[in-house]
């Protein structure tokens, strides 16, 4: 036991003396929370738009004013022809355009019908849809206010409530995701590299011939990363509560115990990678491509799983992060108890046992 503690101390020193690696260990989670929390949104504001007004009458001018008055749009310039609209799109300056045909008002007032065309840059489909929706809403409300007389019959008034996240903030969705990602990153990549490093530099040979049990060598490498991950988890939670105002609705103790289970899952994966590779580069690329990417892809916070083709949806079940993400969302945001997450927890536990068994089986006392 004393030996074991000495080894754990050695590993901690390795970690703390390497300032640049610490940047990744502690800097990355903080940067991610800040970026996801404050910078990355799909919210539309000040989107640049051009107006092609072939009519230039009171109504078109009034509608353009309404558009300009909204915080969503910023009118880039007036253009004179369709060619100029296209050029503006190609120069990347604008995301949408609105076209009023000639004689707009007189058509509207005499034949009761006139057309407005909205053109959006479809190379970014979701933004295009949102912009088209906003522009239509502005035009419709103008029409309601200025052109329609008397209240409309048979009016259905929907009353919408946004559950869990009334302000539609991004944080509710990504904080659990960042947790899944960072823990996976720290545990898998760092553990596997630090073990393989000893192999590559030849110091593993020394450790393996020492009286210390080989298996404990590996375990003593896992302990510091387990602790660092728990610290990281705490930092992420504190940041999200105090900086992003995201509440923890469920039990904190439950959250931590399930997270510990997930960390152990990730550590056993790191162990498995380290037992099957010989060079740091391979270990790194393997954990990056084999673990990071599937985690980002299939956790469900960056890419919607329900839109994926069926084979990918099936594969996603094999990714631990997916189950962890569901658990964290349920505990943190929905405030549910263990009764609602026992299924996911059991799956995670099963994965951990399987990975541990596999890596112990592959663990070799002899190097070459």
């Amino acid at each position, binding site marked *: 036991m004393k030996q074991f503690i000495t080894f754990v101390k050695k590993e901690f020193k390795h970690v703390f003396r*390497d300032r640049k690696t610490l940047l*990744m260990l502690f800097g990355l989670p903080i940067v991610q929370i800040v970026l*996801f929390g404050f*910078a990355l*949104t799909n*919210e539309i*504001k000040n989107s*640049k738009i051009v107006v092609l007004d072939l009519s230039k009458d009171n109504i078109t001018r009034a509608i353009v004013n309404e558009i300009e008055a909204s915080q969503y749009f910023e009118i880039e310039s007036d253009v004179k022809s369709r060619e100029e609209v296209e050029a503006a*799109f*190609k120069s*990347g300056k604008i*995301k949408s355009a609105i076209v009023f045909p000639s004689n707009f008002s007189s058509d509207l007032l005499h034949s*009761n019908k*006139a*057309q*407005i*065309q909205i*053109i*959006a*840059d*479809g*190379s*970014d489909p*979701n933004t*295009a*849809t*949102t912009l088209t*929706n906003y522009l*239509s809403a502005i*035009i*419709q409300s103008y029409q309601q206010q200025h*052109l329609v007389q008397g209240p409309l*019959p048979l009016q*259905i*008034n*929907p009353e919408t*409530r946004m*559950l*869990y996240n009334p302000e*539609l903030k*991004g944080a*509710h*969705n990504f904080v659990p995701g960042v947790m899944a990602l960072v823990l996976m990153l720290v545990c898998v*990549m760092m553990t596997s*590299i630090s073990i393989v490093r000893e192999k590559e530099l030849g110091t593993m040979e020394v450790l393996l011939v020492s009286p210390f049990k080989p298996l404990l060598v590996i375990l003593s490498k896992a302990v510091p990363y387990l602790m660092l991950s728990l610290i990281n988890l705490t930092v992420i939670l504190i940041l999200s509560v105090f900086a992003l105002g995201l509440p923890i609705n469920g039990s904190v103790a439950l959250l931590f115990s399930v997270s510990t289970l997930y960390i152990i899952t990730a550590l056993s994966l790191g162990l498995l990678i380290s037992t099957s590779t010989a*060079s*740091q*580069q391979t270990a*790194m*690329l*393997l954990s990056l491509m084999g673990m990071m990417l599937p985690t980002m*892809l299939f956790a469900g916070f*960056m*890419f*919607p799983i329900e*839109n*994926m083709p069926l084979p990918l949806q099936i594969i996603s079940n094999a990714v631990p992060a997916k189950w962890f993400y569901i658990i964290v969302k*349920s505990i943190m945001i*929905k405030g*549910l108890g263990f009764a609602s997450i026992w299924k996911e927890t059991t799956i995670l536990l099963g994965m951990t046992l399987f990975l541990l068994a596999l890596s112990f089986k592959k663990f070799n006392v002899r190097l070459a």
Partner: protein
Amino acid sequence: MRTIFFILRKEFKQIFRNRALLPLIFVVPIIQLIILPLAADYEVKNINLAIVDHDRSTYTQKLISKLTSSGYFRLSGYFDSYDEAFHQIEKDKADLILELPANFERRLVRENQEQLFIAVNAINGTKAGLGGSYLAQVLADFNSQIRLDWNQGARFNHQPQIEITSANWFNPHMNFRWFMVPGILVILVTMIGSYMTALNIVKEKEIGTIEQINVTPIRKHHFILGKLIPFWVLAMFIFSVGLFGISFFVYGIVPQGNLFVLYAFLSIYLVAVLGFGLLVSTYCDTQQQAMSVSFFFVMIFLLMSGLFTPVDSMPTWARVISQLSPVSYFIEVMRMIVLKGSGFNDIKIHFAIIIGFATLLMSWAIINYRKTT
């Protein structure tokens, strides 16, 4: 010149002899490029709808069938109470609850207005926002339809009506993959260029073989060119495979603009990326460090590049960070040339900026590189 040639031979041999690394360099990016766009479909569809219909009238039936046939919604079931439906949201079986009050139809006809209740699972804000607006759209359609039926068009037609038509240029079918594939291709060459360069040089440092090179007559610029050219070629190759093999054949994206301009931009961009890798390697001593540092920065570059969320939506400070990253410019240029067919004149400024990045990163790295320890 001959010296560079020898170093190049050594580097290529090292790359091709590493049986573990080779498939990772070549196969994984290709697989990624096929799988990522399949997965990265942000179109909001298949919204699971739980319905609590207390009225069960003709109107509510009509409304429900209009919703389910709109293509956005999938019926997850009918429930007797709001609480039951809410339980479905807790279990992630439903995204949206539509509650129609009792006597909905009667009150709507008698009092000319009636409420209905919508609850959206808003944990994913984007999905909730778009889902809510789709529902509002279908509802408005339904509203004007019943109004028309009721009035026989009598009064309603005399109101002036603005008809809104909309068009989506450059991607008329709103295929999300067109948006993602060019961006992902940029990410791939960036990752390969920066990680591989940084790791490769640091590996020589860590294992100690760099000492051997340092005591030979190989000059500094020989070494740097010899290290960078292989990865430049590799990244060019992977980009071409991605652009023609996958983007074109698998996803049917025909580059609209001038390929020569695109490749000219790529070749300068790669100099900037490789310069970044070299720079990281001059500051690091172990591969773990090199990986951590380059991963840290590449991650920020990626998130801020506008690949997933528009740069225009970011707050000012974040836009400044985004402008300090070469990745943002290439993603923009890629989408402009490939999807919109923009020409050299449209991306002149991007060109100037990327040349600036390449010069800055490369000279910083070269100045910082020391043969002595």
